[in-house]
């Protein structure tokens, strides 16, 4: 911190302390052992359901496709449970996690037994004793809905190109081959199925994005268990390196119909993980998303919902975690998913605070919020590395540019609902 400050004068920003911390290579999350323990624990608990999310998202995008009655889209077939993660196991393109490439053993165990009893999948599904894919779909929809407005990367604009429409058309016709009813419907309302395919492309996009994050989080948990991370910025830097290492991973959408592969978005389009998935994801899911119905209701006429999509700030960085716990709210579903896979140290930790087991969901929700501030810090630092200058740059002009970048990022947390201030306080739980 002092290094930068000796070269340029201190920031006058509302969050000057946090900006100085970022300039020193730190995270938005204060560097305490308690914070480190919390975020790593929750990364682990997040990674296991995420292992399911990415597999199922790809399954829906590739196999379920346009099934008009997709009752069983959350019933992951063995083939997809065994699908090799490209960044874990011996077969990895680039081994991020030392563990296996197939679904995590804890996940397999949960799918079989759930929290209740060993029983049929249907029972677990109806009893809601399962991974809540609804959350993953909500994230996907946030990306889809904000995609056009954000204009990040080339993915969304490609969905409007003639090439894409042609590819989708071929796949739609192949999928409904021998089904005159659906083909007739397609003739009548061509845009309807096309729009569905666009959404499915986002399924694929998010699935491919999470395929990477999942082993990253597993590995972080393993490193922490070995005593590997010294502090929060270590954990953040691991993420920064991860982002760069995987940045060039292709984003595509393939569909398998009758064993034949239809490339709706081919790998050769050059879409990358960083530009077409990660950055839009952070913007759409961490910052924007959409207001959740639940204990709160919104009145658009009374301007309780912003007029412009860019003004939407309902993401995890802004979320009020307290209403969480009402049924059907996507973040609640995620909290519930993570609850099944909490490491013991985190369980003990929650037991000691607030209402112990009774409000674990909120406590872990706030931990999750902290951890996502750390992920966002990693993204900010990665962007700074990619587009701007090193933190120890000799040129004050460069340091000033870095400063302006950090300040611009922090400006987004000046909104009253932002939780940046809250997470600075360890008593916010």
């Amino acid at each position, binding site marked *: 911190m002092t290094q930068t400050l000796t070269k340029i004068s201190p920031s006058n920003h509302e969050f000057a302390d946090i900006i100085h911390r970022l300039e020193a290579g730190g995270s938005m999350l204060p560097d305490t052992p308690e914070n480190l323990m919390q975020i790593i624990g929750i990364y682990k608990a997040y990674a296991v359901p995420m292992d399911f999310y990415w597999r199922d998202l790809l399954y829906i995008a590739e196999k379920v496709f346009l099934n008009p009655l997709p009752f069983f889209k959350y019933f992951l077939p063995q083939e997809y449970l065994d699908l090799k993660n490209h960044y874990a196991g011996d077969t990895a393109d680039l081994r991020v996690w030392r563990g296996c490439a197939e679904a995590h053993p804890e996940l397999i165990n949960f799918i079989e037994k759930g929290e209740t009893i060993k029983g049929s999948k249907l029972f677990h599904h109806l009893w809601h004793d399962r991974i809540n894919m609804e959350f993953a779909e909500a994230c996907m929809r946030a990306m889809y809905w904000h995609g056009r407005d954000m204009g990040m990367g080339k993915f969304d604009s490609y969905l409007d190109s003639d090439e894409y429409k042609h590819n989708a058309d071929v796949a739609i016709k192949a999928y409904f081959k021998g089904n005159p009813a659906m083909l007739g419907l397609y003739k009548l309302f061509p845009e309807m199925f096309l729009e569905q395919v666009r959404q499915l492309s986002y399924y694929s996009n998010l699935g491919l994005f999470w395929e990477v994050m999942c082993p990253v989080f597993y590995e972080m948990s393993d490193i922490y268990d070995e005593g590997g991370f010294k502090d929060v910025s270590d954990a953040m830097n691991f993420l920064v390196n991860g982002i760069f290492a995987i940045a060039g991973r292709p984003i595509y959408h393939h569909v398998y119909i009758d064993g034949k592969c239809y490339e709706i978005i081919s790998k050769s389009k050059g879409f990358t993980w960083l530009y077409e998935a990660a950055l839009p994801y952070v913007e759409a899911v961490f910052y924007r998303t959409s207001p959740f119905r639940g204990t709160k209701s919104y009145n658009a006429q009374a301007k309780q919902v912003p007029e412009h999509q860019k003004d939407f700030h309902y993401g995890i960085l802004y979320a*009020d975690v*307290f*209403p969480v*716990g009402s049924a059907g709210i996507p973040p609640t579903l995620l909290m519930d998913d993570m609850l099944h896979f909490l490491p013991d140290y985190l369980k003990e930790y929650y037991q000691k605070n*607030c*209402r112990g087991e*009774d*409000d674990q969901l909120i406590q872990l929700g706030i931990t999750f919020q902290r951890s996502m501030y750390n992920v966002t810090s990693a993204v900010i630092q990665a962007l700074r590395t990619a587009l701007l200058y090193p933190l120890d740059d000799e040129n004050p002009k460069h340091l000033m540019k870095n400063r302006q970048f950090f300040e611009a990022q922090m400006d987004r947390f000046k909104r009253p609902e932002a939780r940046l201030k809250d997470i600075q306080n360890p008593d*916010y739980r």
Partner: protein
Amino acid sequence: MTLSLILWLPLIGVLIIGFFPNPVKTNTLRNITTLFIFITLCLSIYLLTQFNLGISKIQFTEYLTWIPQIGLNYSLGVDGLSLPLIFLNGLLTLIAIYSIGEKVERPRLYYALMLLINSGISGALMADNLLFFLIFYELELIPFYLMIAIWGGEKKGYASIKFLLYTAVSGLLVLAAFLGITWFSGSASFDYADINTMALSANTKFILLTLLLIGFGIKIPLVPLHTWLPDSYVEASPATTILLGGILAKLGTYGLIRFGLQLFPDTWKLVAPGLALIGTITVLYGALVAIAQRDIKRMIAYSSIGHMGYILVACAAATELSLLGAVAQMVSHGLILALLFHLVGIIERKTGTRDLDQLNGLMNPIRGLPLTSALLIGAGMASAGIPGLVGFISEFIIFQGSFIIFPIATLICIIASGLTAVYFVILLNRTCFGKLNNKLAYYPQVLLLEKIPAFVLATLILFLGIQPQYLTRWIEPTTDHLIATLTPINVEIAQK
């Protein structure tokens, strides 16, 4: 024998608590208190089962001459008027024991007073002798005064003195009336059975009845004699408020029926229109002032004033149905009020505030007080007279019974019961719904021990709302008999 047990057992409890060797844990004292009150409650339930519904007169009588020179006798007995209230007394004391929370300062004194209050109220309800009644009626003041003065809130000194002054005056007026009744009528003793006011001149009777009305009117309380109530209710601890509002106030209406209506049946018709007017004003005043409150406890205190007004209107009308409704309302109001104050007590203890502007979103299932809020909604519904809950039953009986005699007053009361819904919607909307404040919402959990009383009350409110005959069957014979002696007069009024 049972009546004496109900009267004396708590006093034995007081002695045990008083002489229990030191050091003693608060819990032990509480358990002793609970035990004694529980036994008296069981005894009152036993009485309910043994009560002969075919007899309208006083039952289970016990009689010992005590000081015959002044006509004071140890004379006990219960009828349909007092028995439900004796049960209510036992129940609410039991609830009150668990409404103060975990920690009690000076537990020995606290629990001793609790037992004293229980015994005193039972005594007043069972007494069959005017003087004997008055002894208990006056004796109540001291424990209540201490309860407010020691365990009260910020302005406890002011509130407790105000309470003491008002109720002492009430006691003096009632004493004066009792002495007048007995001496002027030349009765041999203060026993109810010996007293006959028929021979008195109309003016004397009117003056005596007025004394009684003012005396009991303070206790009920009626507007404009009510100003002690909001202060006492708000400053007292929830436990004290439950006993104050749930059962002590009922001694006022009980006295009104027992001594006003029963002893002066013919004079009653003269004052009835005036009483109905005061009752209606009380109802309206309570409801309208409650709407304006920011403090939830104060809001419920004013709501209590309003609901007591219905009883007065019903008493004034004095038809079989209205009187039945009046006694039923005493019980149901006692149950509902106790539940409301108990829940408000929990909310205050957990959140540290009673301010409507600060409370919000308590319905939050994880960090709020969801069960408390849910029960509060139930209690609010009961108080507003939603069908299926006991409040509806008693209010409906009152309205139906009073309408023939005082149609306009009854209609105004019905409108006012709509206003009840207004302030309860305000209360529930602000406290239970909306968004929980992130900065404040680290409330402690509600303990099982605090939940159980609320469950018991809520269950009774629901049960009696669905099966009201278990409320009315004990009351009906007595009130029917009471009215039978008045019927010609009522007809007269109706014809006018």
